[in-house]
């Protein structure tokens, strides 16, 4: 079976508008989270990472002069513009695909005070807008599978390439911080009033953040990005347990990792680093620690990047994969921000400082509502 690679990429976030800038900030332990006071979206101050609209408009105007886009569309188009440009690929070709990863898309268009029509909240509309903007020949495939969407989209891109439908797939993810989302997570009492602390004994819930990110998934090994990785194996397994709480045994995540390792033909000893989900809720972090221990992965360095952006929903798996590939390329482990003392019942090796180390292979995992879990294994390309 042919090889498939994760290549050129971009991140649009409060830490910067390209992957390298963002990774440099993470290298120095800089968080994009800050306290926000905005009564229009939440009645009390909250921690989040938001995209500054003025900065976004400036970056967007360099990409295009076209008008009439929502904030989310501008974020996603600005991101994809960079990734397409780096790749030099002609998106009008019939073997080039487009996959959109989002949980809620333009959900703010449902608000009566939003200037855009309610029809803009249909996710296929978001797909159509992005397809049309760039002139993709193929319709967008929109993946909306809760918090695993971003990493699942990468797996789906690989599968489409192996089915010979596409040679290249551009994946773009995005979600906004909205009143819709904050009020919902708050009704679950899942929001932390302080910067989130994944795996820490004092963790008190999640922060929600907004980012967009994009990447090229390709079978062409001749023109890859410096930080490109090979996608060795991937799987997505359901907990079959509860719609809003993870399995206490980590069953779906355990099975996802098992299936991905089998396909990748690697064992736990081959994994150099785990980029985990780590939302900083009690149940999620505990579940992950259990699943990793069941695979004897407790000594593998692990981080959650939620301390830098918060939980960015449909983008999180994609953005965290991008940072993981840079981590491999730079042979550097980045700290799991917010962590001080272990607060899960099973041992895991949480990264506390930026550390140089030879790295070849990493495991990316995510879990979400609906009992979904995804695991993907990436291996460095030796140029």
């Amino acid at each position, binding site marked *: 079976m042919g090889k498939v690679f994760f290549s050129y990429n971009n991140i649009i976030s409060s830490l910067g508008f390209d992957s390298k800038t963002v990774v440099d900030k993470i290298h120095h332990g800089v968080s994009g989270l800050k306290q926000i006071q905005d009564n229009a979206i939440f009645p009390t101050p909250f921690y989040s990472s938001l995209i500054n609209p003025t900065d976004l408009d400036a970056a967007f105007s360099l990409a295009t002069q076209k008008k009439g886009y929502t904030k989310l569309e501008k974020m996603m188009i600005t991101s994809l513009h960079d990734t397409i440009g780096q790749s030099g690929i002609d998106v009008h070709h019939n073997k080039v695909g487009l996959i959109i990863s989002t949980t809620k898309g333009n959900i703010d268009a449902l608000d009566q005070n939003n200037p855009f029509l309610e029809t803009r909240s249909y996710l296929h509309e978001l797909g159509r807008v992005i397809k049309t903007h760039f002139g993709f020949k193929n319709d967008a495939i929109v993946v909306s599978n809760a918090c695993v969407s971003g990493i699942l989209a990468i797996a789906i891109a690989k*599968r489409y390439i192996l089915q010979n439908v596409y040679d290249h797939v551009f994946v773009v993810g995005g979600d906004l911080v909205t009143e819709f989302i904050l009020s919902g997570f708050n009704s679950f009492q899942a929001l932390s009033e302080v910067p989130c602390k994944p795996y820490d004994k004092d963790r008190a819930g999640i922060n929600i953040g907004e980012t967009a990110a994009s990447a090229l998934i390709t079978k062409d090994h001749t023109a890859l990005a410096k930080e490109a990785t090979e996608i060795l194996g991937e799987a997505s397994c359901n907990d079959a347990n509860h*719609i809003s709480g993870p399995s206490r045994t980590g069953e779906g995540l355990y099975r996802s990792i098992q299936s991905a390792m089998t396909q990748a033909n690697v064992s736990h000893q081959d994994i150099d680093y785990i980029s985990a989900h780590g939302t900083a809720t009690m149940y999620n972090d505990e579940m992950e620690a259990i699943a990793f221990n069941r695979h004897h992965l407790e000594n593998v360095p692990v981080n959650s990047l939620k301390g830098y952006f918060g939980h960015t929903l449909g983008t999180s798996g994609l953005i965290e994969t991008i940072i993981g590939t840079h981590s491999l390329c730079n042979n550097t482990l980045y700290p799991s921000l917010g962590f001080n003392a272990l607060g899960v019942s099973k041992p895991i090796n949480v990264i506390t400082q930026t550390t140089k180390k030879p790295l070849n292979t990493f495991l990316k995992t995510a879990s979400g509502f609906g009992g979904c879990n995804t695991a993907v294994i990436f291996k460095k390309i030796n140029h």
Partner: protein
Amino acid sequence: MLQNHYNITSFCRIKNNRIILNDQVVFSETGHFSTFIKSAYKTLGVKYPKFFKMDALSKLAFIAADVLLKHENITPEHEENVAIIFSNSASSLETDRTHQTSIQNKANYFPSPAVFVYTLPNICIGEISIKYKLYSENSFFIFDTFNAEHLFTYSNSLLESQKADKVLCGWVEYDGEHYDAFLYLVAKSEGITHQIKDINTLYNK
């Protein structure tokens, strides 16, 4: 194209106040969706109290899946590797609108976790997975109209890479007053050939 040995072994349709399994009407009743689907639940002997907590999209998908999986003798005890690939046009917008109504007016602000959890389309896949103990591949896709080509490609990928032994595919849409569920099972058994044109023929019946 290579000979495809996977077939469509069963299909189920719920629309226009009727539930149809493999061309046979198994339930029909007039009235609004909420009374229709509750009546179907009772008449078909589903016996799963969590059903009453579900939103309309999950109820629709759950009953369609239950009718089909029972017919196929798929049971939680056997823990079969049945992947679920669903799609629609409106995602979870019907429940999204309910949640939005609960937060639109600051003087009358009542967001509920019981509603919010259903503001994701893949929750209905979770509901089916829980009842049938399906620890399997699952994903939800959004297209403006029914997309047989995508369901065909993605189910073939899961079957050929041995990620799944069977795939429950389809379209589950609930938007305003409109509802439509079309599910079919792809497996290595006797049935209708699994090709894009066959999927479209079944959908357009």
